[in-house]
């Protein structure tokens, strides 16, 4: 699976970068930069970050 951002929804709250600090950093305006978008099926921290996104912008997509 892959982490995806709906850029029309993301408002740069930065919660994903806190929850997934090992793979997401933030640009100078606070928007997420994903170093590696691939996610294993059993990656619970990625699922937690997706569920926590206040803008519902972070998603897990198949393929």
């Amino acid at each position: 699976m892959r982490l995806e951002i709906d850029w029309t929804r993301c408002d740069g709250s930065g919660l994903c970068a806190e929850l997934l600090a090992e793979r997401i950093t933030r640009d100078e305006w606070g928007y997420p930069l994903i170093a590696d978008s691939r996610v294993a099926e059993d990656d619970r921290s990625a699922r937690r970050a997706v569920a926590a996104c206040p803008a519902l912008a972070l998603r897990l997509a198949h393929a």
Partner: protein
Amino acid sequence: MTATLDRPSSAAAGTPVWTIGAPRLLAGLDRFPVIDYPTHLAVHGPMPGSDLERVLTQLDGVGLAGRGGAGFPLAAKLRAMPAHGRRRVVVNGTESEPASRKDRVLLTRAPHLVLDGALAVATALGAAGTTVAVHDEAVATALRAAVAQRPDRVDVVVVPGGFVSGEARAVIRSLDGGPALPPGRRTPPTEHGDLLANAETFAQVAVLLRLGWRRFAETGTHHEPGTTLLTVGGAVGRPGVVELPLGTPLGIVLAAAQAAVAQAVVIGGYHGAWHPPIPRITLDRAGVASAGGSFGAGVLLVVDEQTCALGELAVATRWLADQSAAQCGPCRFGLPALADDVHQLYRGAPNAVEIAFRHVRAVSGRGACAHPDGAARFVTSALHMLQDEIEQHAHAGTCGRPVLNRLGVTA
């Protein structure tokens, strides 16, 4: 500073047309200002029948690709349409690329080729409706007059907005009563039963179905048969919309357009790239791609030695930033930052290049539509080309040349 588009509101009325080689789409326009339906039939002959199998055979025969910029094979779109449910054919005639005039020329002066192609695809698909979406009221008026000359039902709809509103999914959303903005999810229009293609693409379909794929392929390149429309502008003696065989070398087109001595050419328009004026670059998708650019929707702009190229870039980058729909953060903040960087380079500020490249990376691949990527490609290619000018501005504060607005937008 804001940049505005220097585009005549009277659509294509004042746009000259000319050809290299035999005209297909522009046939008859040397004799008639507008080709009405009886004239159209006299020039092109009757339209053959169009069942799905025949249409797909012809499209596959020449691998006909969309002419709106993305170059997606039309046959693949037809095959991706759902077998059941509502199906609609949409002609994207918005032509929101600022330097492009070719679709306006077709829709106002040779509209029946576009309508023939769209109606043939609609028949092949068993589509319930055919819609042409345009940005300009003048184009809509001309098109409605053309539709009234035919026995067919075609809806002509004016959709609002700027550059990004001409994006395929933004057009569909607007037609369905939503905002004229690209949606956040990248689902293709075919998923919901919409077969959308650019106006020239449908005109090419009309030519292809009449000629058959073998004769269609008698001109152009092996991989990209046929002709293409190209809007030529900037420092040229003969600006306008040109029909030419795909694969024509840049040098031939520059000579035919009576181009001034060029320091650069912009191919593909505002989502295209800056190139040195290398005569052997061929004007087809593969040729421009191998030169590191994009053929885009078919635009060629000449930046001559008389103008300040860095100033031209600054105005164009500001215009691109102004065109952001401000939906996606990286584009909303990144493109204005990039425009500021380029303006700083123009003013001679040192070290602005590194910051500009950082902002290019900050927008690349981070948006709902192709705008940030297209803008990034445009600016990156120019920054690579204009290193001497950047140094000159940093050293002396100016290159001593005025900004002559060769790219069609003004500060």
